[in-house]
């Protein structure tokens, strides 16, 4: 009986999801979804809610019927199921309801505030997800039934990065790799030495400056966790350091995307800056998706920088262990410092990259734009800035020289925010695909006419149309599926990580670490901003 009681939240969530899926299947939610601009995701909503709901119910029944065991199935599937379902429900609610509602509310508050709140604070589903996780854990706390599942967030985020490996080409990885090794190498080592120097100036213990230098220099809390045992950090030093890093990181997560947009950074520049200047690697991913959650260009750049930083971690641990060991006489093995600290998931990322590069996911006929996907997909949409450019151009009658078909294609692009068939024909896939493809052809005609100076369009308008056309050129269905899963994995992982940021861990920031942390963090963020603007140009990303 008590087992059924324990599983009650999962049963309720599962039943709720199935009821939602069935109601959505009847078409009753179409009006609401249209008002929220999420109607194009209705098919996905039905599939996801029914599948997740069925799995939740099945798992809850099994958990109610049997004693918890120690098998791998129990440990990795049955016990974490409640938490996994909870985070998925939160992710779905945020993507399909909370984000659109925040946008609508921001727009309605615009006359009062003079700006769109969601744009200034970058309140997209990623940031909202992290915030929801933080709010939940600091108000009601993580429910008991969900605790084992929440721990999966780390693994799921790693899976997201591994899947991202399928989205790089050799040229991209080579170019971004060179940028990242130089920039990250300079700023990681520079910040580590800056903190060690500040520690010396302020006469702080080596254990404290050691742990803080790794955290501020390499990858935030992850580096602190890796270095603390090596430099024998005291509890207060760890608490102050982690508090400082978490506070600084959360501020960066909101401030970086806004500054990046104000400075007119392109996705490559922003990805490079976020990957260098933001301390915690989870917050780098969040800031990259906050800067641009529509396509994953920024995320691709930021993650390369993230991975480079992580690869520097064993080196920094080795340097600090040598530096600390000299004074204390402590001896540590190469294995315990470097091999044990090596992030194994990067091998998975490289494996997916190699498989993708060898064409395992993309048959030759699908390469170089021959495969076109005009179905509804969040990532094939133009960005909100591009949409506004097109909308303004239309209201100013900037498309006056276009043919009727071309004008219809542009009008539809503005209406649907992406190249696609007619919404009402979506059940007839052949017709839907045909209309979508012909709209793409018309838009390519618009670009060709602009190039031949037959019509005059601003650079921004051409860029927006070019992006829309580019978005529907896909490498292969496998890569698209991997990317879709990856986006959900990132959303899941970041909500779960948000749940692990407690108020206590943030408010414990203090002591000398906060002084040295603020000096080194602001120096790193500011210098990397100018260096990135100066050095990093737009890299051609597919």
């Amino acid at each position, binding site marked *: 009986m008590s087992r059924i009681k324990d599983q009650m939240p999962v049963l309720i969530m599962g039943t709720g999801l199935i009821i939602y899926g069935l109601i959505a299947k009847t078409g009753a939610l179409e009006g609401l979804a249209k008002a929220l601009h999420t109607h194009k995701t209705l098919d996905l909503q039905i599939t996801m809610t029914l599948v997740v709901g069925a799995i939740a119910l099945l798992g809850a029944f099994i958990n109610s019927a049997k004693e918890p065991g120690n098998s791998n199935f129990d440990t990795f599937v049955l016990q974490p199921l409640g938490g996994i379902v909870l985070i998925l429900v939160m992710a779905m609610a945020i993507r399909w309801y909370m984000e659109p509602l925040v946008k609508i509310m921001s727009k309605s508050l615009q006359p009062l505030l003079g700006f769109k709140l969601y744009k200034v604070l970058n309140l997209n589903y990623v940031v909202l997800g992290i915030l929801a996780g933080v709010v939940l854990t600091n108000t009601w706390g993580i429910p008991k039934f969900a605790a084992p599942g929440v721990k999966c967030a780390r693994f799921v985020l790693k899976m997201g990065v591994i899947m991202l490996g399928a989205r790089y080409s050799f040229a991209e990885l080579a170019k971004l790799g060179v940028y990242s090794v130089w920039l990250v190498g300079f700023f990681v080592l520079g910040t580590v030495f800056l903190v060690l120097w500040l520690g010396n100036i302020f006469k702080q213990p080596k254990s404290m400056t050691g742990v803080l230098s790794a955290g501020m220099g390499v990858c935030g809390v992850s580096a602190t966790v890796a270095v603390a045992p090596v430099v024998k950090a005291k509890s207060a030093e760890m608490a102050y350091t982690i508090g400082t890093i978490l506070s600084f990181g959360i501020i960066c997560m909101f401030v970086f995307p806004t500054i990046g947009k104000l400075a007119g950074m392109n996705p490559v520049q922003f990805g490079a800056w976020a990957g260098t200047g933001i301390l915690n690697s989870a917050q780098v991913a969040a800031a990259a998706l906050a800067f641009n959650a529509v396509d994953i260009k920024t995320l691709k750049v930021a993650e390369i920088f993230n991975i480079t930083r992580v690869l520097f971690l064993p080196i920094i641990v080795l340097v600090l262990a040598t530096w600390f060991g000299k004074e204390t006489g402590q001896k540590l093995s190469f294995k315990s410092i470097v091999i044990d600290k090596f992030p194994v998931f990067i091998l998975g990322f490289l494996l997916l990259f190699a498989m993708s590069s060898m064409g395992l996911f993309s048959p030759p006929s699908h390469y170089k734009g021959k495969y076109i996907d005009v179905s509804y997909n969040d990532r094939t949409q133009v960005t909100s800035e591009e949409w506004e450019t097109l909308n303004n151009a239309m209201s100013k009658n900037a498309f006056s020289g276009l043919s009727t078909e071309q004008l219809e294609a542009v009008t539809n692009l503005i209406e649907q925010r992406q190249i696609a068939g007619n919404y009402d024909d979506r059940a007839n896939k052949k017709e839907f695909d045909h209309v979508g493809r012909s709209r793409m052809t018309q838009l390519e005609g618009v670009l060709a006419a602009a190039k031949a100076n037959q019509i005059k369009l601003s650079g921004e308008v051409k860029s927006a149309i070019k992006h829309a056309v580019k978005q529907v050129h896909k490498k292969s269905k496998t890569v698209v599926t991997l990317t879709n899963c990856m986006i959900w994995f990132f959303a899941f992982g970041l909500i779960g990580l948000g749940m*692990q940021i407690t108020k206590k861990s943030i408010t414990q920031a*203090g*002591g000398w670490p906060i002084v040295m942390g603020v000096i080194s963090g602001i120096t790193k963020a500011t210098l990397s901003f100018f260096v990135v603007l100066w050095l990093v140009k737009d890299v051609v990303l597919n």
Partner: protein
Amino acid sequence: MFNHVLLCTHGTEGALKAESFVFQKLTDNPTLKVTVLTVLDEDWRGMTGDDWLNSSKTHTTFLDHVENQMNEEIAEEWQRIKDSYPVADQAEFLQRTGNIAKTITKVAEQLACDLIVIGPYRKKKKFSIHSTGMGLKARMKNQELHPLLPCPLLIAP
């Protein structure tokens, strides 16, 4: 009047007052049984924040280090008490990890203590860069403790 006192201390200024009060009583009444309890806040388990890059081995190494560090600090705290109050040798010393209020009341119940002694409420200190004390100094809300009390609570003035 009381037979078994549970002294809750973690070395803060308020807790020092509780220590002084209890060991004065112990000097006056040598038959009094005193248990010194130090509670390690369960939130220390969440110290890894939003770290997701490290392997479980690195996590375990870190948490072991945190635990060892805390044990060392608690041992130092107990030694300080023994050095300050010779009668403290008669007391029993206990360390537990968990929610502070729940752990105090649970231990009091398990040991059948008839009095719990804690230090007075102190205002949070203003931020100071010199405030690098031990990591033990967690705070507890009285409204969490009071409904759970199994015996009288004395707040040392």
